[in-house]
């Protein structure tokens, strides 16, 4: 798969979580890339946490841009 397709997949994931009302609660970066934790809901008990791993540079850029300007 080309780098670009990987990025598009990662971007779609990010977009879809934001669209579904998820919020980022944690970001963690290491040698393997960027790990983003999304959660839904306000209350701790309802919380569902999903983690995505961003491999591409474009996606690691995109998530930060989203956080800065979109949400």
């Amino acid at each position: 798969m080309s780098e670009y397709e990987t990025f598009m997949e990662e971007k779609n994931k990010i977009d879809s979580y934001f669209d579904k009302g998820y919020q980022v609660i944690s970001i963690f970066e290491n040698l393997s890339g960027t790990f983003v934790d999304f959660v839904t809901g306000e209350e701790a008990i309802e919380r569902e946490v999903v983690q995505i791993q961003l491999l591409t540079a474009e996606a690691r850029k995109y998530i930060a841009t989203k956080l800065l300007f979109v949400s």
Partner: protein
Amino acid sequence: MADLQINLAGIKSPNPFWLASAPPTNSGYQVQRAFEAGWGGAVWKTLGDPIINTTARFAAASFNGKKVAGFNNIELITDRPLEVNLKEIYETKKRFPNHAIIASLMVEPKQEKWHEIVKRVEDIGVDGLELNFGCPHGMAERGMGAASGQVPELVEKQTYWVKEVAKTPVIVKLTPNITDITVTAEAAVCGGADAVSMINTINSLMGVDLDSWNTVPHVAGKGAHGGYCGPAVKPIALNMVGECARNPLIDIPISGIGGISNWKDAAEFILMGATGVQVCTAAMHHGFSIVEDMIDGLNNYLDEKGIASVMDLVGKSVPKYSNWGDLDLNYKVVARINNDVCINCNKCHISCEDTSHQCIDMLKDATGKSYLKVREEDCVGCNLCSIVCPVDGAIDMVEIKQTLPSMTWNERQSRIASFMT
């Protein structure tokens, strides 16, 4: 006609083109010829205790058949007694009162030594002093030149000693043989320098002769490292000028030196913060008359831009020179090939395929004719293909309008910091 006069820390000259302290400014005969040819100023070949030179002294790098892409020397400072130089400085100044004559000085790092030479030189009448803390060979082995120029405390202290007695503006000439030139530049500021100049030559060994295994150049079969200058060092010098110009602690004028060969190079240095420029290698390669095009070209350029004085050009690009962390990560350019102009050498393809991001495809059209196409979505906009492309206009790097707003690395890091628990 634009006004080409400059005023560098109080030193005035009819144009920004000075000869750097080096063989072209060895004697009154030469400096007077240079002024006749149009040079605005000259930094006299460094004065100090007269030295003894070796033969041979120079070597140069040819690049693909072009002579003097880079130039290397193991020459020291002046080999003539101070009195002789001073007499010729006096005569030259008398003949050319409106041209700038700056005396370059180098003595042992001792207060009384500096006091003595400054007084004697200023007594004869010069427009300024340049302290040579840069010569990378020979003199450095004796604790002068780059040896003292690499130690910020010594730069500061010696500048201070000079300033104790100097009546004319003091320029500190910095060595590039140091990790961060702003450190020594700041030291010069702390010592009271009125201006800094950069760069002196860069440590170098020109080559090794494959038959004799001698160094190039060699002196009776032995070599020593020399100082590198000429067109090849221009990007290094330009960066050093830019780094100093954008550093708020270095708030004194800069005289730009290093690889300047024509008016365009000079204009770049001036835009990057130099108030004037100094030239050595280009004059050694072609003679003094090259200044004619430097003046004419710069003048035509200023006229075309509607700029009245060259002083208005100084530093105009400095705000554009910044830290990597302040660059917009969402700015995007991609390569686009103009197939009408392309001559199908496939150099862009192979450079991208082997050494970049594999996004230039070699295709065939319906008639079987070969053509190249960039997969723009995969192109990272590195510029490599357009750099290797031999044909003007065959590859354009085009800006892709972004839907996303600008975001720098620093902005990204501070935004995600709050999520890093």
